[in-house]
């Protein structure tokens, strides 16, 4: 994209298009010109020149500071949007690289792909120079250095032969050395003996290496290439769809395709992403996760339906893709002969639905931790990510012959709770934060007689305790005080769990304070 900066600026600013404007960046010796408008170019301004020099030619030039960060952000956004053509897109400096292997036929061959890309960018008002070549380096060189008129049906080496050596992406110093030696085009370089080149250019300025990469003698993979592209099904629309139900309707048509792909590869989806590609080069995404791998079209559709309906079409969607970006192995499964679904899968689906609507932090399962402090001993883990669909784990183990068969309906239990020296009386409910209460008690360590919690007075009829829980010195600060827990019952039979924090004269603060921590049922 040779003119991205100036085109982006022209779209965002209010200047008339014919005004001579240059975008400037800070250079070592004053401002340098970064990009110029057509009008400014006609008046002699060139990118890379100093602003003062250009001003000398035409004092009427308008200088505006450039925004390289904003340009880079736009390139990144465009890279995401370019996912409509190929699953593998990489930002490469100020351009984009697409791995077009195996996707060109979807757009009517390589020519069709190039035409589609150029048209799409033209619709955005951006000039894009595109080239398709067998190697990434060659494509880079052709896109930047080949003028459009010379595109033809020639071999790669022939096409490249006439290009300047700077198309090899070498250091400027190396390029200067090569030009001084008279090697001005790549064609001249190809004809040189390799040994001589390798001997002359060593270390960082590896001309042979660049040449090999360009001609495909040496692989240059796109980074972040997933070894196994995730199952994906895509849909292109003839006309941009702006109505709200567009995404839902697309989802209906995408799901069968994705499920078929999952089935073929014996996979089940754990996470699905629905991407809607808008015409204004932005992408709307909605994703859902599942508790156990699934490829049931009805279930997946139900999970995504709400989120799909909430996607904002903006100026209209013109393509959709549904990707299962996290998958797990899932063999062919049969529910049962009769119409009675298995408990575990039902449960996993329930968790999925709850989590999609309420969020993973709201749907949780208990999880025991090794701690003596009650509030730390019992933690919670998100039900969707808990390792606990123990039934699923057990069934996998059974398949491998590790465990004897057992009743699957009881196997949801997860890891067994941590039992520390027998069963102690623990309340049914725990306050998220222990609340301070006023207690009348026999000092220094006597039983409580009466307490006031939230302005209600409770006369204690019966009391059991104390159960002393010492601070965990290996975890807590040295100023933490011990707790003496009492199980108390008030005159009405309501039972509470209260504690006194600290002792008189324990050297860790003043008088002990009382807290209420739990309620018994």
């Amino acid at each position, binding site marked *: 994209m040779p003119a991205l900066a100036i085109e982006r600026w022209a779209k965002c600013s209010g200047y008339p298009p014919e005004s001579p404007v240059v975008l400037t960046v800070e250079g070592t010796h004053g401002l340098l010109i970064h990009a110029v408008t057509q009008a400014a170019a006609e008046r002699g301004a060139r990118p890379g020149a100093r602003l003062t020099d250009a001003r000398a030619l035409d004092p009427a030039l308008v200088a505006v500071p450039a925004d390289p960060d904003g340009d880079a952000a736009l390139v990144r956004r465009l890279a995401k949007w370019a996912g409509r053509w190929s699953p593998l897109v990489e930002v490469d400096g100020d351009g984009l690289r697409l791995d077009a292997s195996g996707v060109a036929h979807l757009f009517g061959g390589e020519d069709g792909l190039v035409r589609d890309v150029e048209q799409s960018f033209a619709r955005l008002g951006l000039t894009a120079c595109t080239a398709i070549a067998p190697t990434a380096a060659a494509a880079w060189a052709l896109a930047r250095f080949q003028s459009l008129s010379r595109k033809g049906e020639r071999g790669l080496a022939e096409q490249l032969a006439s290009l300047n050596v700077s198309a090899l992406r070498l250091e400027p110093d190396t390029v200067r050395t090569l030009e001084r030696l008279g090697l001005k085009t790549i064609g001249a370089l190809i004809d040189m003996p390799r040994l001589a080149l390798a001997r002359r250019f060593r270390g960082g300025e590896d001309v042979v290496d660049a040449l090999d990469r360009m001609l495909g003698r040496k692989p240059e993979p796109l980074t972040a290439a997933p070894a196994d592209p995730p199952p994906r099904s895509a849909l292109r629309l003839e006309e941009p769809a702006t109505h709200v139900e567009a995404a839902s309707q697309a989802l209906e048509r995408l799901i069968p395709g994705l499920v078929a792909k999952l089935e073929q590869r014996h996979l089940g989806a754990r996470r699905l992403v629905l991407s809607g590609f808008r015409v204004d080069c932005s992408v709307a995404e909605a994703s859902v996760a599942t508790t156990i791998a699934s490829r049931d079209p009805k279930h997946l559709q139900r999970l995504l339906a709400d989120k799909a309906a909430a996607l904002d079409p903006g100026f209209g969607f013109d393509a959709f893709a549904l990707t299962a970006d996290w998958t797990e192995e899932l063999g062919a499964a049969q529910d049962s002969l009769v119409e009675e679904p298995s408990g575990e899968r039902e449960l996993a689906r329930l968790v999925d639905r709850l989590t999609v609507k309420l969020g993973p932090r709201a749907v949780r399962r*208990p999880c025991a931790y090794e701690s003596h402090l009650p509030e730390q001993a019992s933690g919670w883990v998100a039900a969707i990510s808990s390792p606990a669909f123990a039934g699923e784990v057990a069934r996998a183990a059974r398949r491998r012959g590790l465990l004897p068969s057992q009743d699957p309906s009881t196997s*949801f239990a997860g890891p067994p709770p941590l039992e520390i020296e027998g069963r102690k009386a623990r309340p049914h409910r725990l306050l998220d934060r222990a609340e301070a209460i006023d207690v009348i008690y026999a000092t220094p360590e006597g039983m409580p007689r009466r307490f006031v919690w939230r302005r209600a007075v409770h006369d204690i009829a019966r009391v059991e305790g104390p159960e002393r829980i010492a601070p965990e010195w290996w975890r807590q600060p040295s100023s933490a005080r011990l707790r003496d827990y009492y199980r108390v019952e008030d005159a009405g039979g309501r039972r509470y769990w209260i504690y006194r924090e600290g002792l008189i004269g324990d050297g860790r603060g003043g008088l002990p304070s009382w807290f209420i921590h739990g309620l018994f049922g």
Partner: protein
Amino acid sequence: MARGLSLAAGGAVSASGASAPAKAGAQTVPALAGAFAALRATGPLPSQGNWQLPSSLAPTLSELFAAQPRDGGWIGFLLAQVDRAKPLLWVQERMAILESGRIHPPGLPTHNLIHVEARDARDALWAMEEGVRCAALSCVIGELWGDPRALDFTATRRLAVASERSGTPCWLVRLGGTANLSGARMRWRVGSAPSLANPLDPRAPGLPAWDAELFRARGFPPGRWSLFHEADRFHLVAGAGDRALGEVQRLSA
């Protein structure tokens, strides 16, 4: 020993926690029933050998009002009726958590549960309805604080129908709410009652007891009972404190 007799009649003459005496006590219900008729139980007394809590045969929606919002007694009453083989869905509205605490798994008889913290009553009711439709759950418990607008007759009716269709019982727990129009098949009001004697320590609380009032039910007469739960059954508490002791002493004299 006299203490054990003093507090409980019927099922737990010896509220000792040992299972054999408790079973023996359970069989003594008919014999003692007449003698203790005047004591405390105000509901229907055990006519046959086994007194049973009124509970509908088919799973349905029951509504339970906590006698006081910060009285946890209903939990024991409710959990005693829950099937522990299957997982439990426990939905708590955020306000209920703030006011009366979050459930604490180490204190519960089962760890096999899914907890949902709902932002408001609407989300809570939605989660309950999703849960009730899932036949793999043993029970759905939903706690709502006060009288939310989302909880109307339609909402409760939907829950009741879904519960009856799927066979998953549903308990709608109301903390600090008023008993307005509802589609629930059974409506309870449950609060704590002074617990039974602790055989090991006279000053300590013993087995929990509850005052349960069934104030509306389909197919059952309303009633009010003082109950406790031991050895997988509910038993009636007859009398409490010194009054019962006096009666027992008078009877035995």
